[in-house]
């Protein structure tokens, strides 16, 4: 080999505490090193040009740059050597800035260390092999899991960009949590009025295929070529025939069916359409409450359905979709707040969740927007809002902030005053977190214009006073004394958690999730939409608590990621992946058991079982390499021989 070594001065950043000239002199004696140089700034344009010239002039076939961290400039220099005609992997870096000049005080020791790091790099480079990426076709279709506002936004953006979309929603309608809200902060405009048109667009868009009342059964494949099995749950109504007229629901005798859409604040019928603006506007039979399905006699809906859509014998069915990318937008659920025994643990009818309160405020809710107490139907006079129920509370293992409760609590307090001008609202809060645009102004208006009384402190107990009201006991930490408020209605701003089933979906998608169950992004700051599995992106609250504008923004961001990926007709894999030397492989399958990505499969080669790496799935961790006893599985660019060369350079 003919190796060139470039010892960067980085101005005085390196040269200040490392004798670069001496390092270069020592490096000259390393095997295969034919050229050394000491550029002032290797990464600057003159430095890169000089490197290209040297590669040509000295016919170098490998380059070592001793400078900053490879995390900083490895990509830069790989491009440089590539411009000069070398394979980008015939390049190594020695980190003599972050790991030497910036942390060691003695010049002698630093110089010696720098020279050794160069020696390691040269040793490794001598074992490097040119690597080339492979290309493969892309199925330019995206699957979006979850039809809340984030998923809807992703779907519409992708569809508008010409990408066919498969939208999968678990409930019978899209719209997610936003569809349940009455109004939105900080503008107090009608949630259904701004979301409704988007939902209709989803229904009408020629590029969107909607699978409502469906769940993701299985995911296989890899970026560009996923295969997703979708379980379409039995609705017992043939949606091809259903016109959404609602006759079935009108006639259904089972009128005490719990109404999940209304957060169980009211009842519905066993066959129903969850709300008037539902998309798709199709009826679903609740099998647990349908008299025909539970007792075998009724059949009223089938009798009255004008199109004969009712099908009591319907079973779940599976459809398979081939897609190139997947966006997870599965949202959130409220945590089980009944662990707060001191708030009655769910036993008091007038202590309700904020989402239930939204339904009570909503004109499409069970009370038609008439604000009443669930217990007796009376109008509440004093309404107490309790924030951070299940948020920022280590004692129940939920240290995280739910991010949007401060704002909707202010909104709900404002709406309370608008519904019932005589009422008085109180808000127990820990801190008011209102960092968004127009947010702080909004909470101030709640206090100043709507007379909402904000009390800084937590609530220690809620109990009925025996006379029809509730006593809310808490502390006012600003006054430094306990407070007690008599309430007619208590609204708990219940903390959020990842939607049920999130962990199972994460396993199917092979993406990580955090302690609270939210999906892990690839980088907390710089890659908030990507995951560590190529081709899987995140949108909305499934990645972490965020409000509607942030969810919509992330929905669009995920769509942009998908379209950027689909802008290419072929994808290239990262060649730093594992490969199996078939001669050495005995087919013991240890690598298959360990691979965190399921990237190795068994393959029958001339009657023998061998391991084979699925190049597009392998992420390059090298676990298989350290697992394989016979050294058959090797990770390109970090092979046993490459690491052994480094070890041998240091220890002999």
């Amino acid at each position, binding site marked *: 080999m003919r190796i060139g070594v470039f010892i960067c001065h980085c101005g005085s950043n390196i040269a200040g505490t490392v004798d670069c000239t001496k390092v270069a002199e020592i490096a000259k004696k390393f095997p295969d090193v034919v050229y050394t140089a000491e550029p002032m700034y290797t990464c600057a344009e003159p430095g890169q040009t000089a490197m290209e010239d040297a590669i040509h002039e000295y016919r170098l076939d490998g380059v070592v740059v001793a400078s900053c961290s490879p995390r900083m400039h490895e990509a830069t220099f790989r491009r440089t050597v590539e411009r000069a005609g070398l394979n980008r992997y015939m390049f190594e870096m020695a980190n003599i800035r972050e790991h030497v000049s910036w942390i060691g005080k003695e010049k002698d020791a630093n110089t010696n260390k720098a020279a050794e790091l160069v020696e390691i790099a040269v040793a490794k480079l001598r074992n490097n092999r040119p690597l080339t990426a492979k290309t493969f076709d892309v199925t330019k279709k995206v699957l979006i899991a979850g039809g809340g506002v984030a998923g809807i936004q992703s779907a519409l953006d992708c569809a508008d960009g010409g990408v066919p979309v498969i939208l999968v929603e678990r409930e019978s309608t899209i719209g997610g949590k936003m569809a349940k809200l009455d109004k939105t902060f900080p503008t107090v405009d009608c949630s259904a009025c701004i979301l409704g048109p988007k939902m209709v667009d989803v229904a009408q868009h020629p590029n969107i295929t909607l699978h409502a009342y469906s769940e993701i059964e299985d995911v296989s494949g890899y970026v560009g070529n996923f295969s997703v099995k979708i379980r379409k749950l039995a609705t017992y109504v043939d949606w091809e025939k259903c016109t959404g007229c609602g006759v079935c629901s009108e006639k259904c005798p089972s009128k005490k069916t719990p109404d999940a859409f209304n957060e169980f604040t009211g009842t519905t019928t066993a066959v129903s359409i969850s709300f008037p603006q539902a998309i798709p506007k199709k009826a679903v039979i609740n099998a647990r409450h349908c008299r025909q399905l539970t007792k075998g006699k009724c059949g009223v809906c089938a009798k009255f359905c004008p199109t004969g859509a009712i099908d009591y014998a319907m079973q779940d069915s599976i459809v398979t979709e081939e897609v190139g990318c997947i966006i997870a937008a599965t949202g959130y659920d409220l945590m089980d707040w009944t662990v707060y025994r001191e708030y009655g643990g769910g036993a008091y009818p007038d202590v309700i969740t904020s989402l239930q309160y939204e339904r009570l405020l909503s004109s499409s809710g069970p009370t038609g927007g008439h604000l009443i107490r669930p217990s007796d139907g009376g109008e509440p006079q004093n309404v107490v809002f309790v924030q951070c129920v299940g948020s920022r509370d280590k004692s129940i293992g939920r240290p995280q902030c739910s991010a949007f409760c401060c704002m909707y609590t202010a909104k709900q307090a404002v709406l309370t005053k608008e519904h019932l001008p005589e009422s008085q609202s109180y808000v127990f809060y820990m801190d008011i977190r209102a960092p968004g645009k127009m947010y702080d102004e909004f909470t101030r208006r709640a206090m100043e214009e709507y007379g909402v009384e904000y009390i800084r402190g937590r609530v220690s*107990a809620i109990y009925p006073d025996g006379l029809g009201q509730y006593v809310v006991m808490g502390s006012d930490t600003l006054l430094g004394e306990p407070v007690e408020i008599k309430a007619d209605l208590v609204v708990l701003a219940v903390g959020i958690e990842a939607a049920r089933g999130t962990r199972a979906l994460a396993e199917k998608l092979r993406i990580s999730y955090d302690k609270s169950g939210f999906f892990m992004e690839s980088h907390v700051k710089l890659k908030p939409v990507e995951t560590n599995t190529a081709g899987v992106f995140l949108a909305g609250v499934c990645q972490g608590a965020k409000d509607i504008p942030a969810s919509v923004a992330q929905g669009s961001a995920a769509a942009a990621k998908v379209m950027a990926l689909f802008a290419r007709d072929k994808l290239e894999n990262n060649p730093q992946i594992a490969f199996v030397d078939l001669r050495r492989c005995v087919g013991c399958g240890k690598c298959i058991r360990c691979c965190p990505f399921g990237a190795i499969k068994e393959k029958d080669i001339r009657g023998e079982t061998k391991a084979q790496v699925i190049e597009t799935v392998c992420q390059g961790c090298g676990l298989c390499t350290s697992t394989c006893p016979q050294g058959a599985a090797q990770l390109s660019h970090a092979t046993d021989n490459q690491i052994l060369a480094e070890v041998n350079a240091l220890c002999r």
Partner: protein
Amino acid sequence: MNYAYYPGCSTQGASTDYEKSTRAVCAALGMNLVELPEWNCCGSTPAHAVDTELSAALCVRNLDIAARQESETLLTPCPSCLSNLKHAAKRMQNPEARARVNELLDNPAASEFPAVTSVMQGMAAHLDAKEIASRTRKSLSALTFAPYYGCLMSRPAEIMKFGDPENPTLMESLLTACSATVLDFPLKTACCGASYGIPERSMTARLSARILQLATDMKVDAIVVACPLCQMNLDLRQPQAEKAADTRFAMPVLYFTQALGLAFGFSPDTLGLEKLRVSADSLLRKLGTGAANAAGSR
């Protein structure tokens, strides 16, 4: 069946009625209470507030006596004693703490102590609700009670092991076995003001008043308690609470053993009912068990 029994200081003075009724009811249930010989005060609030090791040593001496008695269970009626005994037993699991406590004692304590539990739990473990019901001679169906456990009995949950710390229901099961109506009393584990009755009387008056007010609003015939100090605050100090709330409660406050005793047909005298500051006569009238016709009872 024999049970080691630690009465605690209160039963020797302020709450002799608790002691009398406890012994009567236990006897009726077939529980033989064997009082610890030469027991001493558990140290109550002052000891553990000043020196946890001294407090532990005081309790461990009693536990040690119980251990030598070879009883499986040590019962105590008072939640404060119970708390101290249980905390001491827990503390002794730490070898360093054990060594320091042993230094304070004449002789090193036994390596294992009998399980300490409340008289209430002891009764429930001894007989099930059906058997308790079978022993009632006088149905309490005419009476409505507010059960009140106080703050100590169920907390801290991992030490006291008294069920849901916010919502214990053991007393309810005993009283309903005697056909009484027992309401879901939201303040059942609230604080009555405890020993602040002495240094800060107004606070105790305010806290007790809240409990009494809720019971009054819920229209119960009596509050039923399991703690001598709670009983004292709610009963003896009821005038102070009334003054604080500017109202009149006239709310009888019984020990659960007294309520059970009435169901088992004991006379008011046997149960020490005359010791109540707020008379329980209204209850007795409802039951038809006036002092006058006590002749028919035990």
